[in-house]
C-alpha cells in the first residue's frame, strides 16, 4: 500500500465571488520510504497540493477528490483524528523558514511543542532534551534551542525547520521548496542533510521545487506540474534527462548541468507568461507556449498517458495514434 496517495485531488480558491482552480485533478502516490519530487513553475499549485495533504488550506479553498495517508482519507477524517495525524503521521518543512517560525518563541520550544502534544509520555524536560538531540542531528549546536528565529541565519532556520519536522518521527515529510532564498552553498548542504536523514530513517518524502535538477538529484521519482495538473511522471533520471512532455523538457533545460558544455548552448527557459488559472479554454493548457504544438492540440486536452515503462506524460505526442480523434 502506498503511504501517501491522492486521487483526483482538486482545489479551487474562492476569490472575489469567482472560483479560481489551483489544482485540477492530481493523482500522486508515494510508497513507504519512497521519495517523490514535485516540480513546476511558480503558481502552478505545488504548495496547494502540499497543504491539502494535511488539510491545512484556508476556508476559502474548496477541495475535492481524496487524499489517502496510510490508507485513511484525510479529507473526511474527524477533527480529533486529523490533529493526531498532523505532524505525527506527516510533517511539513515550509517554504520560507523566516515566516514559518514564530518570531517571539525560542526555537527549542517550537521544536518541543509537537513532541509534548503528540506523545503523552514526554515531560517538558525530556522534550527539551529531544529538541537538543534533533538540533544536533541537523548539525546545529544544542544551545541553538535558546535562540529566537531572528538570531539565526537563513540556513540555520531551515535546519531548525527540518529538526522540527522530524520531531515526532513521521513516516512522511513534505518539503516545500526547502532551499529557495538560500545561497547555492547552503542549498546544497540542506539538500544533502534532508536526503541523508530521510534515507537513514526510512521516511517517505515529497520534495517540492521549481528546480528540476535539484529534485532529480534528491528523489527516486519526479512529477512535473503545469497549471494545476501533473503533465509528466516517472523515474527521476529519465524525466530529467529525457522528458516526453514539452513543458517538462523546457523545465529541465532551464537549469544547466554543471560541466555540461552542451547545456550552455541549449535554449533555456520558456517564452510566454504562466497560464491564467481562471480561464483556460479548450485544448491543451500548455499550447500557447508550446514550441511543438500541433493543430489537434487546440481541441484535445490529453490526460496522463503511458509514455514508456513505468512513466507517463500528458501530451498528444505520446498518445497512441488511434486515441486521437
Amino acid at each position: 500500500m502506498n503511504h501517501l496517495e491522492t486521487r483526483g485531488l482538486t482545489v479551487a480558491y474562492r476569490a472575489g465571488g469567482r472560483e479560481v482552480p489551483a489544482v485540477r485533478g492530481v493523482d500522486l502516490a508515494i510508497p513507504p520510504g519512497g521519495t517523490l519530487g514535485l516540480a513546476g513553475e511558480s503558481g502552478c499549485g505545488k504548495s496547494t497540493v502540499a497543504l491539502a495533504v494535511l488539510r491545512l488550506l484556508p476556508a476559502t479553498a474548496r477541495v475535492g477528490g481524496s487524499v489517502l495517508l496510510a490508507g485513511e482519507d484525510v479529507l473526511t477524517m474527524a477533527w480529533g483524528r486529523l490533529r493526531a495525524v498532523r505532524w505525527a503521521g506527516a510533517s511539513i518543512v515550509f517554504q520560507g523558514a523566516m515566516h514559518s517560525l514564530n518570531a517571539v518563541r525560542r526555537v527549542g520550544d517550537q521544536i518541543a511543542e509537537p513532541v509534548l502534544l503528540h506523545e503523552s509520555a514526554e515531560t517538558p524536560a525530556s522534550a527539551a532534551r529531544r529538541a537538543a538531540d534533533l538540533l544536533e542531528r541537523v548539525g546545529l549546536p544544542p544551545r541553538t534551542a535558546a535562540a529566537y528565529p531572528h538570531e539565526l541565519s537563513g540556513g540555520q532556520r531551515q535546519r531548525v525547520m527540518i529538526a522540527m519536522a522530524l520531531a515526532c518521527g513521521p513516516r512522511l515529510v513534505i518539503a516545500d521548496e526547502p532551499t529557495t532564498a538560500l545561497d547555492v552553498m547552503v542549498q546544497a548542504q540542506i539538500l544533502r542533510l534532508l536526503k541523508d536523514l530521510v534515507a537513514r530513517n526510512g521516511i517517505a518524502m515529497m520534495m517540492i521545487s521549481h528546480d528540476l535538477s535539484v529534485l532529480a538529484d534528491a528523489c527516486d521519482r519526479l512529477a512535473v506540474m503545469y497549471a494545476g495538473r501533473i503533465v509528466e511522471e516517472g523515474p527521476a533520471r529519465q524525466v530529467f534527462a529525457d522528458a516526453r512532455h514539452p513543458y517538462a523538457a523546457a523545465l529541465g533545460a532551464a537549469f544547466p548541468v554543471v560541466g555540461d558544455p552542451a547545456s550552455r548552448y541549449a535554449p533555456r527557459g520558456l517564452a510566454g507568461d504562466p497560464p491564467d488559472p481562471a480561464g483556460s479554454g479548450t485544448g491543451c493548457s500548455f499550447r500557447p507556449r508550446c514550441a511543438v504544438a500541433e493543430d489537434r492540440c487546440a481541441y484535445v486536452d490529453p490526460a496522463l498517458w503511458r509514455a514508456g515503462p513505468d512513466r507517463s506524460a500528458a501530451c498528444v505526442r505520446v498518445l497512441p495514434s488511434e486515441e486521437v480523434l
Partner: protein
Amino acid sequence: MSGTPARPSPRALARQRRRLALSGFWRRYRRHRAGLLGLAGLVLFVLLALAAPLLVAPGDLSVTRAPHDAYQPPAPAHPLGTDNFGRSLLDLVVWGSRVSLTVGFLATLVSVGLGTLVGITAGHYRGVAGAVLMRVTDWFLVLPTLVLAVALATVLSRSTLTIVIAIGITAWPTTARLVRAQTLAVEARPYIERSRALGGGHTHIMLRHVLPNVLPLVLAQTTLLVASSIIAESTLAFLGLGDPGTVSWGGTLQDARRAGAVSSGVWWYLLPPGAAIALVALSFTLCGRAVEGALDPRSREGR
C-alpha cells in the same frame, strides 16, 4: 470641423480615469452595510443643521422669554421635554447641531490640513528637516491632548474659534504620521524618479504627484477625525470652555449639570444632547471605517 478622429486629450483621459476610480470606490463602499447606515445618519444631521433656522424660531431659544414651563417631561408640545428655563430640548438639540457640526468640520480641517502639510514635508525632505519634524510630531503625539486643548482654550478668549483652534492644534499628529508613511511609499515609486530626472521641483512633485496619492488616505482619516472632534468639542464645552453665548450639545449638558438636572433626576434634560453627540460621532466613525475598507486593497476581495 474636425477631420481628425476624436482623440481624447490627456486631461480628458485623466478625468475619465478618475471617474472610473470614483465609481469603483462607491461600489466597494456600498458593500459595507454599516458604512451606508453611517452615511445616512451623517446626511440626516447635516440636513438638520442646515434646516435649523426653518425649524426653530429665534425666540424659542431665549432664556428670558422661553415658550414653555421649566422642567416639563416630554409632551406633544415639546417632544423631548423642557429645560430649566422652559426651552424645548428638541429645539436646543436641533440648534446645537449647527455649532457641533461646524466645530467638528472646521477643527478637522485645521488638523488634517496641518497633519497633511507636516506629513508630506517630513516625508519629502528626508534628512535633518524631516527628522526634526517627526520628532516634534512624536512629541505632540504623547502629550495628553485634552489637557493641552484645555490649556489653549483657557489662555485664549472664549469663542467658537478658540475651540476650533484648540482641537485642531492637538489632533494633527496622527494624520501627520499616516501621511508621512504614505508619502514615503509614493516617493519610492519609479515615476517620481522620472519626474525628478525631468526637472520637477520639490513643490511640483509634492503637489502634482504625492498629494493626489495621499488624498484617499486623508479622506478616511478626515471622516474618523470629525467624530473625535465633535466629542472633543462637547467635552470642552462641558468643562465650561465653550462660548457661553451659543447653544451647543456640550454646552447644554453643562447647563443641565449646573442647573442640578443630575441630582434631581431630570433625565430628559441629559439624554437628548448626549445621544445626539453619540449618534453623530458613531455615524462619522462608521463612514470612516467603510472608507478605509473601500480603499484597502486587502479587503477589496471581501476576504
